[in-house]
């Protein structure tokens, strides 16, 4: 399963290189039509999950392989956020920490998943839905929706809302085109009831469904 993911991620890097060459040759940006507009860039902070702690049934699909388990998201007293993924039978797969200052720590990860590319991908995916690194952004529009754009080390994270910033429609991690599209649906008491993360360059999805204990 995780060997599959590592292989796919390597292939993705190659695909990105090819895409970059294609872009240089004239491939246009999917965000080229966006125009700056007024608005408060901090309004998307309302969609940052307001965690005490939340438990999600989690499914991961990678090129035909399926893995499931339980994911705990918890805000710690020091304002860091812990993301812990376990099997249904209780075995901890990984334990990540997103610190308030942006630092990232792997507290635990099983050997089978302990690959740089896997950790990097999961970090970015969860960082996207936890609204990490959402400072210094700008507001854009396509004429209908608002795009709250936050430059990252590579590419940009777009939080796309309706014109009044009342509803989060989707989240996109992108270079010139979306690489990851995430949806965070049915917020209840500040926490989404379901989350879906879908990679566009290869078949890799993460689906979270909140559980009530």
């Amino acid at each position, binding site marked *: 399963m995780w060997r599959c993911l590592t292989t796919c991620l390597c292939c993705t890097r190659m695909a990105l290189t090819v895409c970059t060459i294609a872009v240089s040759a004239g491939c246009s940006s999917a965000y080229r039509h966006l125009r700056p507009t007024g608005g408060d860039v901090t309004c998307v902070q309302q969609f940052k999950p307001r965690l005490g702690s939340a438990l999600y049934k989690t*499914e991961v699909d990678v090129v035909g392989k399926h893995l*499931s388990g339980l994911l705990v998201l918890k805000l710690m007293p020091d304002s860091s956020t812990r993301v812990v993924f*376990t099997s249904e*039978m209780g075995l*901890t797969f990984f334990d990540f920490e997103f610190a308030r200052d942006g630092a990232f720590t792997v507290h635990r990860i*099983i050997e*089978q998943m302990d690959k740089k590319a896997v950790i990097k991908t999961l970090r970015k995916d969860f960082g996207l839905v936890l609204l990490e690194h959402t400072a210094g952004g700008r507001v854009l529009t396509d004429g209908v929706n608002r795009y709250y754009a936050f430059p990252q080390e590579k590419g940009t994270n777009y939080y796309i809302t309706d014109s009044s910033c009342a509803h989060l429609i989707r989240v996109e991690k992108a270079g010139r085109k979306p690489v990851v599209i995430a949806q965070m649906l049915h917020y209840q008491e500040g926490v989404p009831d379901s989350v879906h993360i879908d990679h566009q360059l290869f078949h890799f999805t993460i689906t979270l469904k909140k*559980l009530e204990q």
Partner: protein
Amino acid sequence: MLLCCILTIGARAQYAGYTLMADSGPFKTQFATMAQKNTSLRCDFVQEKNLSVLSEKITSRGKFWFRRPDNVRMEYTQPFQYLMILANNHVFIRDGQKENSVSTKSSKLFAQINQLVVDCVRGTAVNNPDFSVRVFEGGQTWLVELTPVAKNLKDLFQTVTVLLEKKDFTPARIKMLEPSGDNTVITFSNKEQNVALPDNLFVLH
């Protein structure tokens, strides 16, 4: 300092109310004999996953079936639906709408973890070469401490302890302690032994 080390090591694996058996031979013989008589088991279980640093507990419940020689059905019903069947060297999993089958021969780690559960129930855990074993005697229960020998298992578990009822050698509790300090405790209740369990329980339909 040396004395401190010795005391620390000696105290490491002591359990309140239990005494280490210097010779676990008679226990093993009795366990194997009783386990032979236990042809099947049907019970409920409560599983608690304790995330130590997070001070979080995940509680799940379900039903458990075992039939000799090595058929296991573990069905989680709360707070999620998840079915796992171990039979014929395969693990069948139904997770929501998705079904999956893994050969325990192709996935050695999966095989070792699942073998552990089967061994705890059918009485062969004390002979599993993947673990070093110590046996402790208590008032109502035996405590079997399994410490992984193989590196891949050491990465997952610090120790696994199994409480066995003295009266019938059925498992009362399995506790899997991870190197991080997290642990998972499975407690069995409403046990019915030697009941007829149909074949279709151990087939994924």
